Every structure is written in C-alpha cells, then in structure tokens.
C-alpha cells in the first residue's frame, strides 16, 4: 500500500503561510513526519497557483526532497507549474506523480507532461459534464482516459485511476460506488490498473471526532478491494495498514506489531 502523505496542502493555514513566506521549516517538518510514519510519496498541493505557481512548485519539490528520500506527487491545476516542478524533481527514489488528468479536454495536455518527463499520472474519472453517477460511469470514463494515455505515450502502468471519493455526509451512495469502481478499474487491464483515492474527502464536512473513524474504516474497505495508493495522512493510516498486513498474512503477528 502506497500512502501519499497529504499534509502539505495550501488549504492548511500553517502550510499556506509557509508557502507564502517560503519558510522551509514547517514544510520539511511535515514531510519528514509523513515519511517516518510510512508515507512512500509526499503530496505537494499548491492549489490553482495562478501567480508564481512555477516558482512555488519548484520550491516545494526541492524543499521536500532536500530532507526526504521520496518522490513527490505534484498537485495543482496549473500545468506550467507542474512542468516546472517536474523539471527539478529528483527521480532516484521513484517517478513523480502528477495530480491529475481527467476526461475534461482542458486536462488532456497533462498527459503530454507525463510522457515528456517520464512521470506517473493520476486519471480522475470525471468529465466536463460533472460528477459520474455510479461505478459503471466511472469505468467508462476510465476507459477513455486509458485510451488517451496510450495515444499520448504514457504507459498504462504509469496511470493511477482515481474514482473520486465524495463526501459521505452529502453523497452517501457514492461511498459504495467508489468501492465497486476500485474493483472494476483493476479488471480493465492485465496487469491490473493501479488505483488511488483522495481518502479524507470521504469525511469532509463531518465533525472532527468522526473524521479519523470514517477515513480509517473506509480505507480498510478499499484496501480489501485492491486499492494501490491513497492520498492520506500517514499517521492516521499507520495502524490500519499494519493491522491489514497482519490480517492478510503479509507480516507476522506479534503483540507489539503496531510499534514496528
């Protein structure tokens, strides 16, 4: 299970302030903390970043990789910021991941960047027409994204299909549609397609005390369906992945297994 450590988002006040002031301290502290808790990649979410996005993404990638030996997930809708980040990404610990392309024509050129910089790309299964209604619609969009990836020269093993997790509080039915979509996505190719979710969106808008509970149980269900990766807080998920690995026989049980 690949955890993409999610705590470096412009939405968080402390991170936003550090980004504005180019203060490396908080950024590196969070990156290290996510890495130590088991993250295999660090998400750098700079938002739309319309002004100075190129500089900001480059600064984020180099600031993170200066202290953590992991690839970075470049998370922005600004494609020139993405390209700037890809140029400075150090891929000795793994390929970068672009978040994201979709079935919206405006997002097609992202695949060009993937091919040009040998990066992995998240394919978000939404189109211009709005949210997919169910798992089948997500799979249909996934098929289009896969065809387009091949056309642009991005190998299918570099695509992570994202079924778009929605809020349980407002879109309860989608929780099960997403579970089903994770299963369907894998059946669309041999070897199975990789999958990723933005996990914490399930509990967006829920009371603070409920959020970790919703996130963790949902994560366990998705893992059981074969989920490859999750953008999530590595600290919050450490117990879940360790317990899952013990229950699935991937690691040997000992009373102290959570401390390992």
């Amino acid at each position, binding site marked *: 299970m690949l955890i993409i450590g999610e705590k470096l988002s412009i939405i968080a006040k402390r991170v936003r302030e550090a980004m504005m002031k180019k203060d490396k301290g908080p950024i590196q502290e969070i990156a290290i903390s996510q890495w130590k808790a088991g993250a295999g990649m660090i998400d750098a979410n700079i938002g739309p970043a319309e002004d100075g996005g190129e500089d900001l993404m480059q600064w984020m990638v180099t600031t993170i990789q200066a202290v953590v030996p992991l690839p970075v997930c470049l998370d922005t809708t600004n494609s020139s910021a993405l390209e700037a980040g890809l140029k400075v990404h150090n891929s000795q610990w793994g390929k970068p991941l672009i978040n994201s392309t979709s079935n919206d024509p405006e997002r097609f050129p992202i695949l060009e960047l993937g091919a040009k910089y040998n990066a992995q790309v998240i394919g978000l299964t939404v189109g211009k027409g709005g949210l997919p209604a169910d798992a089948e619609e997500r799979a249909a969009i996934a098929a289009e994204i896969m065809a387009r990836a091949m056309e642009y020269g991005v190998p299918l093993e570099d695509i992570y299909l994202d079924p778009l997790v929605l809020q349980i509080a407002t879109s309860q039915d989608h929780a099960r549609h997403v579970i089903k979509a994770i299963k369907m996505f894998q059946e669309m190719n041999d070897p199975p397609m990789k999958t990723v979710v933005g996990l914490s969106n399930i509990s967006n808008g829920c009371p603070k005390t409920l959020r970790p509970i919703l996130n963790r149980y949902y994560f366990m269900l998705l893992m059981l369906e074969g989920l490859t990766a999750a953008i999530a807080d590595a600290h919050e998920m450490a117990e879940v992945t360790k317990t899952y690995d013990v229950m699935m026989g991937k690691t040997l049980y000992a009373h102290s297994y959570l401390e*390992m």
Partner: protein
Amino acid sequence: MAFVASKETYSGKVYQVNIGTGANAANLGGENVLPFHSFEGTVPNKPVIAYEIQDVPPTDWPENVQKPYSSVSGDPVAWAKFCQDNLKAKAIALRLLGTHPDRENRSPEVAAKTVKDVLSAINVPLIILGSNHAEKDAPVLVAAAEAAKDRNCIIGKAQEANYKTIVAAAMANNHKLIAMSELDINLSKQLNILITQMGFDKERLVTDPMCSALGYGLEYTYSVMERIRLAALTQNDLTMQPPMLADVGMYVWKIKEAQAPESEMPLWGNTEERGIAWEATTATALLVSGAELLIMRHPRAIEAVEKLIEELV
C-alpha cells in the same frame, strides 16, 4: 534443451553473527536463501556445531554419551580442552547446570569462576547457558557475562520471564544473546521486539524457538523454525532475521529411544548406535529447517552431522 533449475529470489537475509575472538572466531548465518539453497544465493557460513559440556559431572546423561568423556568430565576445564584439542570442536557450550536450585544450587560467583577457568583454557567460541531456571539464570548469567567480558560469547537463554537482566548483562559485556520462546512463532517475534526495544542490537541475537527430539515433537520445532526463516527471507521481517539455535543434545538424550537397553527392546537394535543415530537425525532435520547453531553431545553424532554439512554446503 538443457535443464534449467527454477530459482527463488528472497527479499530478506539472515544476520551474520560473529562469535569468539581471534583466529578461531566463527560466523553464524549471513545467507539470503533457505538452508543449503546455495544455488539460489549466497551462503557465506556453514552451520556450527558446539560440543555441550557442563559444570558438574554428567551423571544425568545416559551412559553411552557419558562414556566418550569419562576421563575428563569431572572437570569442566579438562572437558572443554578435550573437546577443543582431541575432538576438534569448533565451539563449546558450557551449561551451568550446577547452579539449578534442585541440583547443587551453586552461587553465581562459583559459576563465574568456572566460566573464567574454561575460557582461559580454550580459544574456540564459548556459549554460556544457565540451568534453564528462569529466576536463578538471571543472577548466574549476569555474573557469567562479566567473567567472560569481551570474549564475544553467546549467553542465554533470555526468556520472557527474565530477559531484562540478561539482556542488560549481554549488552554491558559485549556478548551475543540467545532469545528463547516456547514453540510459538508470534511469541518469538514478540521477545525479539522487546529485547531490541531495550536497545539491544537485533543483529547480535540468536533465536532459540525451543528444540524437541525426533518422536517427541520435532515437527513442531521444525515448523516454527521453517516459518521464522520464511518470514525472514520472503517477508523481509527484520525482527525474524537472527540465526537460529537448535539445542539438540539435551532433548535427545533424555528420551527412551536413546537409552532403552537392547535386552529390553531387541527389535530396536544396539543402544549406542541407536542413540547416536537419533541425535544425528534430529540435528539433520533441524539444519534443514534453518538452524545455524547446534548444541550436541555425542562425538560420533557430531562427526556424522559435520560430514553431512561438508557435503551439502
């Protein structure tokens, strides 16, 4: 088309544990493959067999295994030298049986003196074992570890009930440590974790999953050892990668088959040959399941198993 053997690759590796000092120091473990699978990877060290001796005369051993040592076993120093010089022992395991409260109940100081005397007479690696009385072993092994300071011995056995004191003694005096649990792979892992959480380097451990003799639960030991080794190699479980010990002699030479006289059991054949074969067979099974260190008693059983190791490695 030529035959091509299919090969497994493993993600983990057994730690290499160095014991003893000087020219006769030895290495245990270090391989990244299942036992004797040298065609799949590297096996830098052969399994080591230690001759078992004890601090009191072996009157508790069957006569056939007392016999080879009858001229020396009254004195642990002479016994140790005999094993090293006459039998070419590559290592010696000194069991401080005389410290057991139900035996001579010797003090830790007396045990420490025995350790010192034995060490000054030999130059092969020494394994220092308590009497397997969890409570008494703690002070005995502390004194023994101090007496053997910097000779890079293996001390043991640390068990769930007494590990803290023994771990601290091994750490303070630069020894390796045997961690023993009772035929339970999960408790074996847990003990290794607890010991390393005290600051003891996991690469200085030797795991004893508890031995048993052929016909008396050998398949349990075999299975636990095999699963420990698979966790180490295929799951790269860092807590399960120490080399393993099989304490063969003490389990084999107390069973009926190793001592019942031929007059009582005519179909079982010669008693001495039977006992030797029993010890060698038990040891062989445990080598195949992953033991890197064996503690054995009869010189002819050891000779047979060493020959087998030579041929298999």
